[in-house]
């Protein structure tokens, strides 16, 4: 495959994508870096000169910084755990013979088609509202005090909303992966005397390793930057302020572009730490 001709052609054909993405990455990145060293306040005359690392230290020393990192990691981690675990169970369930399999699959996938804003609105108003939400009725129906979801259990609530949106994605990928499991392997393990549980643990789960990796990787990228769900539901209150949200507050609410840009640089660093961490733990599954 690898002749000189095809290699140079390959380079040429990769060029548009690489150049575009490079531009898409570099231009904003350099501008972000540039702003992050400036006192840049659009409301007060814009560029007010260089300030060195002041924005960085200020962003870091803000009382909101570490809680925002914790919140980010909790949300990403929580959603990953829920979607992967439930995704596996659902994928296995949906792979069983049943009546109306196609329709059930559609039902399960449907949340993926819902805009984040819409789903946040629906959950917040129609389900989690402590007075009018359906969940409140449910609690009252069983004689319990309705939970004030978004204030008393804010992180779990957001994790739940986001999990609801991403569960279909995990389920889909895991489902296709399960479908690719060699039937003979399962039969062999059955002949070897493995119980259904043992088959799951020893055969199915290892087979899914690669798909799980992919789910984790892609979801992490999207989850690190969730915004609408928080904006609509808690507005960053009750400990749900993620790093992305904190940057949003700095840039758009406080109109401090310099400070926000420094936050952006931190966010990139965090994303890369998470990515490297992921690669270390699960990355080798990608090659297999």
């Amino acid at each position, binding site marked *: *495959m690898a002749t000189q001709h095809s290699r140079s052609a390959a380079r040429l054909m990769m060029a548009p994508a690489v150049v575009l*993405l490079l531009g898409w990455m570099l231009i904003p990145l350099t501008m972000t870096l540039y702003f992050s060293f400036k006192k840049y306040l659009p409301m007060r005359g814009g560029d007010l000169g260089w300030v060195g690392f002041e924005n960085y230290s200020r962003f870091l020393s803000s009382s909101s910084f570490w809680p925002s990192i914790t919140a980010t990691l909790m949300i990403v981690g929580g959603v990953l755990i829920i979607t992967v675990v439930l995704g596996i169970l659902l994928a296995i369930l949906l792979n*069983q013979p049943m009546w109306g399999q196609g329709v059930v699959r559609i039902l399960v996938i449907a949340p993926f088609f819902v805009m984040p804003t*819409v789903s946040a609105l629906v959950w917040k108003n129609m389900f989690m509202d402590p007075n009018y939400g359906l969940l409140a009725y449910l609690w009252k129906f069983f004689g319990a005090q309705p939970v004030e979801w978004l204030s008393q259990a804010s992180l779990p609530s957001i994790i739940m909303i986001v999990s609801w949106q991403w569960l279909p994605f995990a389920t889909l990928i895991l489902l296709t*992966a399960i479908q690719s499991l060699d039937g003979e392997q399962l039969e062999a393990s059955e002949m070897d005397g493995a119980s259904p549980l043992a088959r799951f643990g020893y055969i199915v789960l290892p087979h899914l390793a690669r798909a799980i990796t992919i789910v984790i990787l*892609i979801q992490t990228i999207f989850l690190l930057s969730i915004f609408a769900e928080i904006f609509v539901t808690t507005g960053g209150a009750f400990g749900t302020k993620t790093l992305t949200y904190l940057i949003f507050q700095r840039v758009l609410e406080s109109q401090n572009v310099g400070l926000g840009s420094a936050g952006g640089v931190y966010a990139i660093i965090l*994303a890369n730490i998470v990515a490297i961490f992921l690669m270390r733990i699960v990355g080798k599954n990608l090659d297999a």
Partner: protein
Amino acid sequence: MARAVTRNRKIINTAVAWGIGLLIFFPIFWTILTSFKTEATAIADPPVLFNFHWTLENYSVVMERSNYGRFLTNSIIIAGGSTILGIIIAVPAAWSMAFVPSPRTKDILLWMLSTKMLPAVGVLYPIYLMFIRMGLLDTRLGLVIVLMLINLPIIVWMLYTYFKEIPGEILEAARMDGASLKEELIYILTPMAIPGIASTLLLNVILAWNEAFWTLNLTAAKAAPLTAFIASYSSPEGLFYAKLSAASTMAIAPILILGWFSQKQLVSGLTFGAVK
């Protein structure tokens, strides 16, 4: 595994799966249902399921209030356009990575994905300024470009995994048969990868359709898609659950219908190379 599953087992499977399926779908179902209620029934205590006076009033109010058709058209053009443009750029790139791999291929792929890690809010100002300068503000073209760029890594990656499943020998055969690179891509690779390309298209239409940050911030009136439409309903004065539901239903209906019809494609296609 062609042993007959016992009927009981199948009944249990069906019951559990439908139960869970309906539970997961319930919020959407409830939204759709609420959209046919009056505001009073929407927050009635206890909630009513079916025995209420069905009304289309909410829809007519929403239609009257905003130009749904234009939002919808914009959504279709932006989601479709960015996806198609993305595919055109991604196919050659994915071809290169899949069939002329170099030691750096994996790094490039991961790098591409990493471009998605840039927090959007952090770069809003730079991008906004660029858009003003290039006259792309509030244009569909501008959004098509931006959404294409954010989804490009995913498109490339998905196509890459599909292409990797195509035996290289077939492409070599075409080369032996005298096909130029272009002909190889057009006559052989693309048609063979149709299922993969189709599900890539689909996933990206969904992602583009639901993208809310850039579509909201880079548009005003002319190019605003459904995400902007929904932003005008989120918290008006009073809790207009029924109208909110109607608007929500209208915002997600087109993509839901598209997803509904392409479920099979999505299930079989969304492998990300998981199938080996």
